[in-house]
């Protein structure tokens, strides 16, 4: 059983992280649930916790000079869903996370740090090549979120570091797709999710990408499968689809209900690719905008 802290400054938080290996708690929507003990009892993790929700340095969403968007680790799902600076895939995922009360508490830093393959935000962030900024007394380091999350509940976070922010590079997609499948609309943990995006220039697909959530130990992007489509003319896409779907199916590794998850993933990818093949109106495919 650990001792729990409420640091008042970022420096105190970094000190606690380094000296006590305290685990940051932002909204508490994962740690408070995972370690709950029932009525009248405080949750009791077997590690020290520091509640960092008061550290305003870790808050805020801003546009950087190169067109990227930086989202502070303490930004809540509600703030992300409401921000016009944030790319559509991420806003869409944030707006479907939990219900209103959960979105008011849950943060992007927590959703990433928890490292769950079912987490709502890592999936679209990995689609967009987002990077995570990590802070310690040694300074900052940046790495691709796809590399930061190593596996189920495993991240590359050093035990003297905290997550400072997430940086999303700019993109202009012709077509975008996002779908989350859960047991109910509100407060569902994903059974399966998929993001996809595609840029078409002069009849040629200049950029194609997809990411699968809850379909393996971590969010899955297959650059190999994506490269089968990138730089191909739209006119050839129909012939490529079967091999692409087979390659994507090979890349994912759902554990529970694998047939359902594989079949449904293929159907979602097909829905998106058919819209591209049929020359749909540029924009969002398959769902209302936001």
């Amino acid at each position, binding site marked *: 059983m650990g001792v729990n*802290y409420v*640091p008042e400054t970022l420096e*105190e938080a970094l000190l606690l992280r380094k000296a006590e290996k305290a685990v940051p708690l932002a909204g508490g929507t994962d740690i408070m649930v995972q370690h709950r003990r029932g009525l009248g009892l405080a949750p009791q993790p077997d590690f020290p916790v520091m509640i960092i929700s008061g550290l305003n340095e870790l808050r805020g969403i801003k546009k950087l000079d190169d067109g990227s968007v930086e989202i502070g680790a303490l930004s809540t799902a509600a703030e992300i869903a409401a921000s016009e600076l944030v790319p559509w895939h991420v806003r869409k995922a944030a707006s479907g996370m939990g219900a209103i*009360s959960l979105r*008011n508490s849950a943060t992007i830093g927590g959703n990433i740090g928890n490292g769950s393959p079912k987490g709502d935000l890592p999936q679209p962030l990995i689609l967009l090549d987002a990077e995570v900024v990590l802070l310690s007394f040694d300074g900052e380091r940046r790495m691709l979120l796809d590399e930061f999350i190593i596996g189920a509940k495993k991240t590359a976070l050093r035990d003297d570091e905290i997550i400072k922010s997430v940086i999303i590079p700019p993109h202009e997609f012709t077509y975008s797709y996002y779908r989350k499948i859960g047991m109910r609309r509100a407060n569902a943990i994903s059974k399966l999710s998929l993001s996809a995006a595609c840029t078409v220039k002069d009849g040629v697909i200049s950029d194609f990408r997809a990411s699968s959530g809850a379909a393996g130990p971590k969010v899955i992007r297959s650059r190999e499968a994506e490269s089968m489509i990138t730089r191909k003319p739209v006119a050839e896409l129909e012939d490529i689809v079967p091999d692409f779907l087979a390659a994507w199916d090979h890349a994912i590794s759902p554990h529970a209900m694998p047939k359902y998850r594989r079949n449904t993933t293929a159907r979602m990818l097909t829905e998106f690719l058919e819209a591209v093949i049929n020359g749909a109106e540029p924009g969002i495919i398959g769902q209302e905008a936001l």
Partner: protein
Amino acid sequence: MLKSITFYVNDSRVVFSGNPLTRLIDILRDELGLTGVKEGCGEGECGACSVIKDGKLVTSCILPVGACEGSHIYTIEGIRDTDKGKCLVDAFRDGGAVQCGFCIPGMVMAAYVLLSENPSPDENTIRKAISGNICRCTGYDLIVESIRLAAERGGDLWV
């Protein structure tokens, strides 16, 4: 490092010194006697423990008190005698929204936040606003109708 947490519950100052992971709901119910805050699931899914923290709806069963420094918290006890609170309580009664009543304090808090932000919501907006609040009795229709009734009757009260 904070040694104690100072916050406000229904406009009264509260100072808590103890384990910062203590759940806000336990302080509200056990120490302050605000038993209108109900514990259903204990994991933030059912909304029975909903309170308003700095103007936003949160589930107090998964909110550690250490995250409440400087916050203003309102529970059903803090709003029910206000004009807006009375408007909602009357509408819930007149609209037949209540059966067993366990979910109702949370429902009223969710409705309070909704109408404060959007004084004339359509049905879909109302349903979304209470989508984090589970009711096992009513089937929701009369709750939705009652919130619409509160919007109609309240009029300028909500603007």
